[in-house]
């Protein structure tokens, strides 16, 4: 389904306004029920025993002492699970270790007991014999021949001989001839960049409640970005039929990609199966940081050539990402997106996926792209400044636009990068004066969007109000957006529509809330469901009027004769048609099931001012502006919120957030005290400029907006620090000790 041909002319009544969100009151009064707020009669508390070692063979696990404790109802180890299918094997192994514990915090056993205290005490009575193995947590070290090996035989056909078995795959993208391009350059910058792993840092720890009967029927309540995903994965791991496992998504307290997989859920179900009781599991913050999915850490070589007038002649990057103990780091995404903002004749990226003794990475907002953008945008900045050129002008000169062949292959349709750059250049922020030790940085960012399986059912109630059921957890206001699109299409007030997130028994398959897909894909399905209901309502009006359905049209929330030939009939409103639905054929609903593809790509330019304390290396963010193309902003306040939230997560990544492993491979900062996410006093207001270059693949022109905003800030901040201090920081985070050392070296 494509952009409505008349959309450029379409005057929206509701889309683009800022109504109150439907779940607002529940969330400001404490009534909203998140993952840990769900209870069941007779429930047990489930806790996990975790490996204290970064890498160890599990020689034996003796659970007998724990099982003998009064109040302990079930103990689960890997031995309780059947051999899984290939597609869930790593997920299960990550939820419950098999032959080896692969990282500090890896689950090795779990207990369900009648109280948390009993469970905690009983965990200490599980006797695990470990044979500690050498470990590796650094990506470059893990690639070297002779590095401690996590798995044998996982390397795929893309990897040349002679590398460590920790190297899983190689990904190469690009076109042209790099050497030829570099030969045209007046200057070449060649640098190596590093970024540490960061965590999504959602404030709500993972939580779930599971129950299962001997008949194989099971229920699961959990905080997740995708309860259909949770159903399918858990059913396969537990050997259940998907239709027998009903999963209900609680309110979700943040995810950012980190809740697109399962960690506790299969274990909770197994504990419930063994104990015959409902089992609730809630992670501590320490468990979240040690054993859920942070993003990859990276090491990236970049080589870019530029002419003295600012034309990029060639761009090359070799990216090495470790994604923890299992294959699947987003290095392919990083390799595809690294140069995506630029129109380059000669471009090449090579990505290496590497495993290390760290927790299995999970998606984090534009997975793989921010670190790649940090490397490329830093090098471009260095070249531009080296020539004394305006960094925005240089980016404009090289910007990808409609018709550009993207660095990852396809030719771009209409895109918004140039618009964000021009708007940034004209913005007062760009020309505002700076003081001593202050500097301004800019950077661009790119992200894909996608669609995926989506179902929406829209019901017309007898009193003429509307309920929308969708299958994607609402992580940032999507119920409001769906209600708005339904109301827009139906021509009724926003307040007449209530959208709910339905359980897995109520709709067909739905892809996870990820890839910035919900406003695009679920929005599209909502619009189509509304159109289906409209068709039915027009048919009912036609019956009443005794005319052909084709002679009825829907205008401003009512059916009316399409023209004079259809006869003289006063319009019938949605409520009037609803009231007589029983008399005209029964209840009225519209539904739409699809796998909408054709989501549009999204670009942003960020601008930031920093001040560097030359005596301590402290960096202060003084001013920040986001310029991003939203296609069409359905609810602009929540679009701004996505821009602001992504920018601040990126600021944290740039300055203070990092996974710190000791020599022993144990995570040293598994808490919010030393895993330092930005606090309110670290930040200024985050200004936003929403641009609207419609996506031709959506009836209202929507592009996903959730992810792109985290791509530019790493480089934008680093570029601003460079401008303020004169040192180019190539390693994130730019923590004060690192920056001070660099200042002293200068």
């Amino acid at each position, binding site marked *: 389904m494509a952009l409505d041909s008349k959309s450029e002319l379409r005057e929206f009544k509701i889309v683009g306004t800022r109504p109150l969100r439907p779940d607002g009151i529940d969330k400001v009064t404490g009534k909203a029920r998140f993952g840990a707020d769900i209870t069941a009669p007779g429930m047990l508390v489930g806790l996990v025993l975790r490996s204290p070692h970064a890498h160890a063979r599990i020689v034996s696990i003796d659970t007998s002492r724990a099982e003998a404790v009064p109040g302990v109802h079930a103990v689960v180890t890997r031995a309780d699970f059947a051999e899984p299918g290939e597609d869930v094997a790593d997920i299960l192994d990550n939820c419950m270790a098999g032959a080896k514990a692969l990282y500090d915090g890896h689950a090795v056993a779990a207990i369900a007991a009648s109280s948390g205290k009993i469970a905690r005490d009983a965990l200490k009575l599980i006797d695990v014999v470990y044979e500690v193995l050498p470990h590796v947590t650094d990506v470059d070290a893990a690639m070297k021949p002779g590095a401690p090996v996590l798995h044998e035989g996982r390397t795929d056909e893309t990897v040349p001989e002679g590398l460590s078995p920790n190297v899983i795959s190689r990904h190469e993208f690009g076109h042209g001839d790099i050497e030829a391009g570099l030969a045209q350059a007046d200057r070449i910058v060649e640098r190596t960049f590093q970024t540490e792993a960061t965590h999504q840092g959602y404030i709500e720890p993972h939580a779930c409640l599971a129950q299962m009967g001997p008949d194989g029927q099971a229920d699961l309540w959990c905080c997740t970005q995708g309860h259909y995903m949770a159903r399918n994965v858990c059913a396969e791991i537990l050997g259940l039929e998907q239709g027998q496992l009903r999963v209900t998504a609680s309110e979700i307290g943040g995810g950012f990609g980190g809740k697109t997989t399962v960690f506790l859920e299969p274990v909770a179900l197994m504990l419930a199966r063994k104990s015959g009781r409902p089992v609730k599991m809630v992670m*501590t913050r*320490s468990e979240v940081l040690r054993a859920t999915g942070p993003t990859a850490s990276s090491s990236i070589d970049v080589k870019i050539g530029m002419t003295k007038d600012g034309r990029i002649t060639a761009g090359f990057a070799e990216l090495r990402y470790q994604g923890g103990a299992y294959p699947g780091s987003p290095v392919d995404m990083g390799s595809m997106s690294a140069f995506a903002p630029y129109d380059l004749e000669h471009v090449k990226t090579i990505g290496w996926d590497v495993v290390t003794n760290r927790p299995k990475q999970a998606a984090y907002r534009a997975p793989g792209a921010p670190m790649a953008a940090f490397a490329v945008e830093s090098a471009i900045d260095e070249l531009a400044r080296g020539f004394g050129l305006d960094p925005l002008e240089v980016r404009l000169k090289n910007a990808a636009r409609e018709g550009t062949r993207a660095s990852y292959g396809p030719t771009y349709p209409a895109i918004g990068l140039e618009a964000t750059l021009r708007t940034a250049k004209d913005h007062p922020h760009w020309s505002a004066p700076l003081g001593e030790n202050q500097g301004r940085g800019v950077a661009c960012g790119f992200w894909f969007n996608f669609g995926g399986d989506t179902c929406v059912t829209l019901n017309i109630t007898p009193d003429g109000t509307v309920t929308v059921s969708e299958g994607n957890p609402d992580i940032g206001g999507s119920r409001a957006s769906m209600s708005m699109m339904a109301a827009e299409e139906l021509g009724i007030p926003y307040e007449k529509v209530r959208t709910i997130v339905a359980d897995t028994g109520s709709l067909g398959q739905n892809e996870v809330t990820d890839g910035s897909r919900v406003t695009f894909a679920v929005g599209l399905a909502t619009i189509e469901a509304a159109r289906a209901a409209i068709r039915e309502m027009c048919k009912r009006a036609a019956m009443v009027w005794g005319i052909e359905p084709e002679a009825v049209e829907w205008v401003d929330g009512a059916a009316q004769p399409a023209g004079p030939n259809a006869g003289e009939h006063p319009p019938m409103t949605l409520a009037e048609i609803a009231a007589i639905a029983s008399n005209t054929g029964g209840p009225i609903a519209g539904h739409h099931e699809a796998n909408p593809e054709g989501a549009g790509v999204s670009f942003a330019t960020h601008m930031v001012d920093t001040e560097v304390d030359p*005596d*301590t*290396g*402290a960096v202060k963010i003084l001013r920040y502006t986001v310029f991003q193309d939203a296609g069409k902003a359905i609810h602009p306040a929540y679009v701004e919120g996505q821009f602001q939230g992504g920018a601040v997560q990126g600021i944290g990544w740039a*300055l*203070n957030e990092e996974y*710190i492993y000791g020599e022993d491979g144990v995570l*040293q*900062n598994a808490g*919010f*005290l*030393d895993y*330092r996410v*930005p*606090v309110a*006093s*670290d930040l200024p207001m985050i200004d936003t400029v929403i641009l609207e270059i419609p996506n031709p693949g959506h009836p209202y022109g929507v592009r996903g907006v959730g992810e792109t905003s985290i791509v530019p800030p790493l480089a934008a901040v680093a570029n601003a620090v460079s401008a303020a201090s004169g040192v180019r920081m190539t390693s994130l985070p730019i*923590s*004060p*000790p690192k920056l*001070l*050392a660099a200042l*002293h070296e200068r």
Partner: protein
Amino acid sequence: MHYHSPTSVEDAVKVLAAQSGDCRILAGGTDLLVRMRSGLAEPDAILDIKRIDGMRSITREEGGFRVGAAVSGTEMAEHAALVAAWPGVVEATGLIGSTQIQGRATMAGNLCNASPAADSVPAMVAAGAVAQVAGPNGVRDIPVAQIPTGPGKTSLGPGEFVTSIFLPARPDRASDAYLRFIPRTEMDIAVVGCGVSITLDASGTCTEARVALGAVAPTVIEVPEAATALVGTPLDDPALSALSAACSAAASPISDKRGTVEFRTHVAGVLARRAAVIAKTRAGAA
């Protein structure tokens, strides 16, 4: 686990004397509960001192202030006379954690937790504060600097606990300041902390000084060389540079997840200089 909340020092001493297992003192609880939560502490009993008479009050004594062991940082900040006399000590205590933590955390708890990075301790040491300790052998007074003996370790004997902190009287033209370095603007443990307390004469010459550093040694340390660098000077640039050099020289930190040896050593000198300038202004220097 047992919870005790006696209402007199005598009862508290008796309860402590009767314990056979691990009994922890609960004041604000902002360190103890974190330790319990992480399994680092598994006490058999907790003795809550907040209901003991006098533990929650600030009283004038000999021109100075006696601050009960359960007085929170927020309560200190609300005491105008205390703030006027010892702004550095109050601001140091007020830096411990968030607004929420400040409503509970105490100087005495911060002291007995014996972290080398405790914010209030360098300020207290610079102030010449004295802890009052009750125990089976009665009550004794001891300079706060002598309470922590290493990370997590104190010189308190079995059955002893701190009941109050005494901040001495202030002459005219005297003040103090505390600065710490943290990576964010709030919510972090000090990477380096520095308390400076000074007294000036009518001409603005420093007649007395005390300087203490946090997070650069196993305990908070007093730096006499830093004080020497200030006394007899108008706290001018050469004196401040000497102060800075003395503090960096006195620092013998470790590298850890919060900072490096080089960083802490350098920043100790930076903070000392900046804190001295603030103290000088507060003391009323022209």
